[in-house]
């Protein structure tokens, strides 16, 4: 049988091109093949390979097996109710997975509902990709954990074999209670900062400007900032101002801190920073500010907006400061760094680290180490910057004096040309 097929095919190909044009030729040959292959449904492939290895492959045989074989059950869930959009979405995700798209393998009901609520196809894909990555990370972590546990078991076993008899007394000065001691020490420092520390305000008035995701990022950054403040030699006294009870900020903070929230050594208040401190000692830090910060002042109260702005809405924090008539400053990033890419807005934890460093050392180079390396290509020589500045001034001056002086007519003429 297979011989007849392989014989007929070349025949068809050979003969037809001279008579029919391309499209119909293909049609013709495929119909021919289909007829042939349907006549020989029971071709067993392993046999075929062994019988006629050098022959051309039989091209259409797979179709019959594909058609006849049982339906691949992609989703066993709720196959009875076809109308259910949830099931339809689940099937869609399953099919996408078969296609090698970035979608999660397992998905919960809640997540499925979120997928369905996504307005557009691209937002669906985006969310599914997020879930996919989350799942992947989780899985990788799980595997790592298991490997670690196994290694630990192994280690224990070998240790048990070796050191059963060698159990002699040793002299130690301290019990191994490092972590707790650290915590207590940091608590003391924190309490001191609450009494005598320099205030640092996080302004929590940006809830309406952020999406839920941005808000979550903000809270993560706040946690990180608080952590690095706690570990510092001379911590700030942190204020969370404009933190309304039961606002999204508040709920999320409580969720993340849990029990610890009430024992944190910082001041959380519903009041605004302008109510707590004299207006003229407040400096609002914002990248949009026209004023550049030159030194860290120990008698000022710095305000940082706790705001993650992924949608690029410039000028919001500057508007807030303008409204309250506060002084504003921005970090002298351009003065010290050769800026390359990325926005000048830094994350909250980078901000607090820079401020802490400035507070302790006053050294800008040291402080700006916390600016991500990817954003700049290196430090500018300060002398270089000032040199440039002087040059600019000089140029302007000669320009000025020239045009004022006797050469006035000539220079003007040159521009006019």
């Amino acid at each position, binding site marked *: 049988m297979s011989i007849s097929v392989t014989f007929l095919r070349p025949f068809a190909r050979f003969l037809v091109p001279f008579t029919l044009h391309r*499209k119909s030729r*293909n*049609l013709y040959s*495929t*119909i021919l093949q*289909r007829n042939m292959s349907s006549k020989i449904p029971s071709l067993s*492939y*392993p046999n075929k*390979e062994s019988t006629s*290895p*050098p*022959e*051309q*492959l*039989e*091209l*259409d*045989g*797979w*179709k*019959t*097996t*594909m*058609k006849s*074989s049982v*339906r*691949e*059950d*992609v*989703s066993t869930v709720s*196959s009875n109710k076809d109308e259910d*959009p949830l099931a*339809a*979405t689940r*099937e*869609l995700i399953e*099919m*996408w997975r*078969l*296609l*090698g798209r970035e979608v999660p393998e397992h998905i919960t009901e809640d997540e499925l509902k979120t997928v369905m609520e996504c307005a*557009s*196809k691209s937002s*669906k894909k985006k969310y599914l990709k997020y879930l996919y990555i989350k799942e992947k990370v989780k899985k990788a972590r799980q595997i790592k954990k298991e490997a670690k546990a196994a290694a630990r078991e192994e280690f224990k076993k070998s240790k048990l074999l070796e050191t059963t008899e060698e159990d002699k007394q040793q002299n130690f000065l301290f019990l191994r209670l490092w972590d707790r001691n650290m915590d207590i020490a940091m608590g003391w420092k924190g309490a001191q900062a609450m009494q005598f520390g320099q205030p640092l305000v996080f302004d929590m008035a940006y809830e309406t400007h952020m999406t839920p995701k941005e808000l979550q990022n903000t809270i993560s950054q706040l946690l990180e900032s608080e952590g690095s403040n706690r570990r510092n030699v001379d911590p700030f006294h942190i204020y969370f101002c404009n933190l309304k009870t039961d606002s999204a900020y508040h709920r999320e903070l409580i969720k993340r801190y849990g029990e610890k929230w009430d024992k944190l050594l910082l001041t959380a208040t519903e009041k605004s920073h302008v109510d707590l401190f004299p207006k003229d000692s407040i400096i609002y830090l914002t990248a949009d500010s*026209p004023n550049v910060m030159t030194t860290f002042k120990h008698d000022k109260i710095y305000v940082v907006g706790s705001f993650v702005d992924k949608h690029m809405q410039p*000028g*919001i924090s*500057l*508007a*807030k400061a*303008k*409204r309250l008539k506060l002084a504003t400053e921005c970090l002298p990033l351009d003065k010290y760094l050769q800026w390359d890419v990325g926005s000048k807005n830094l994350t909250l934890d980078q901000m607090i680290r820079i401020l802490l460093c400035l507070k302790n050392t006053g050294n800008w180079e040291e402080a700006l180490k916390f600016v991500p390396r990817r954003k700049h290509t290196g430090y500018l020589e300060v002398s270089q910057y000032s040199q440039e500045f002087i040059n600019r001034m000089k140029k*302007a001056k000669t*320009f*000025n004096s020239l*045009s004022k002086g006797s050469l006035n007519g000539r220079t*003007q003429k040159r*521009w*006019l*040309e």
Partner: protein
Amino acid sequence: MTFCLSGIGSFAKLWKSNPVLLGRGHSYLSLFLTDFCGIRNQQRWFSLKTVSPQNTKATDLQIAKARYLRKDEGSNKQVSSDSSHLFLAGAAKKRSQMNPQSKDHALPPVKNTIELPTKPLNSKEWDKLKEDFKGKVNFESWISSQMAQCHSSVDVAKSLLAWVAAKNNGIVGYDLLVKYLHLCVFHKQTSEVIDVYEIMKARYKSLEPEANTLLIRGLIHSDRWREALLLLEDIKKVMTPSRKNYSDCIQGALLHQDVNIAWNLYQELLAHDLIPMLETLKAFFDFGKDIEDDHYSKKLLDILLYLRNNHLYPGESFAHSIKTWFESGQCSGCGKTIESIHLSPEEYEFLKGKIMRDVIDGGDQYKKTTPWELKRFKNFVKSCPPFDIVIDGLNVAKMFPKARESQVLLELVSQLAKQNLRLLVLGRKHMLKKSPRWRKDEMEMVREQASCFFADNISEDDPFLLYATLHSGNHCKFVTKDLMRDHKACLSDSKTQHLFFKWQQGHQLAIRNKFPGSGITFQHILSHDTVVQTTGDSWHIPYDEDLVERYSYEVPTKWLCLHRKT
């Protein structure tokens, strides 16, 4: 002095360039005239005019002749040849090419250089190829996507599938099937598409949109095109079908003469707030050639109105289709005035309010200015009589980096002041401070010749510019080179954005000089609106040329002019 404020005279350039299709179209007309015009004239709205001797040159896609001519023709010609208008198609492309910094992106290096087979291989050969292949990914899916990309022949792909099936108990994975389907659809192998469709139906309970899209595209050419509509329904279960899906279904319906289904699908498409592909609209016009039906004609005219309302411009071939449907092609050289660029009074008020609310205020007055400053500005504008020209002082002054700012500003102001125009110069307070770039005496002279308003250094001056111009009335123009895209983006909906764009085209004066001191000249202002338009007995349809890349803030320069037979 080539400055030309009245805004006329822009026609000449716009309508001058010769139509590409003129010659061909003409012969077409003369060929077909004798046979068809008599038969069809009665049913059509627009019908052929007989070619009268004095009209022979104006036949096909003719660009209407300028009604108004510029006073100084010579300089005008020079203008149109060397510098392109800010808003006309292709200008941005040209500008970007002039910029030496932009370099071509290097092509990504080609990994994995396995030569794709050109003819079907047998299983041994496939095995060998697989051994040669070194890469992280699965060989089968990699090679099949390569083949899909390079449009290998269907037979090669089929041999691959046969090989995979042979290894795998006759089972072929879903992704391979989809890629094979892609090839079949690309090569228009309808019978293969149907085969794959059968297989997919048999094996999988439901498909995902990509496969459905391919199947739809493949099936519409076959007798089983109605099943494509079922597939469309399947897509609808999980998401909104794309406009391409609709386009395919509509074309399938038209291919099989089912006009009702096509129009229903079109309505559905619009109801989903999708913007139909121009291809879809073209298909309706192409199909319209063969049917004589007032109802259908009316719907086609509705499509033209849709183009108008959404500021869409047909492509070159679509314009051809429209023309063929009208079978007019008899350009009036009509001398009809194209719709004016000026807004109607209601539109004007609407835009003014919107600019005030969305651009200047924007929910937080502190963002771009401060309330007290805004008040100061409003009082200032109220106290002054309407202006003729509003100047963006900083934008103008920074035009020539080598010249002193205040000097450039002074030059422009005194030049305009000589024409007895009431000027307003907007700037920032730092311009008043004595500095080498801003000389006090020159600024004093500016203030003598024009009214000035200086905003805070951290406020934005563009919104004030827009408001002052709008407040002064329809005759008032503004001078800046800024394209104002960010302010346009602040407007909430596309309708207002279109209004803004139209107003901007009609009122923005952009400086054209490359060197200071030679007398400042402006780009002419478009005096007409570039939009699909009708006067009842004539249609003017701007269209995109195939070879010109048009940016979103530019408008086409070519027109299709259709005229009803009188």
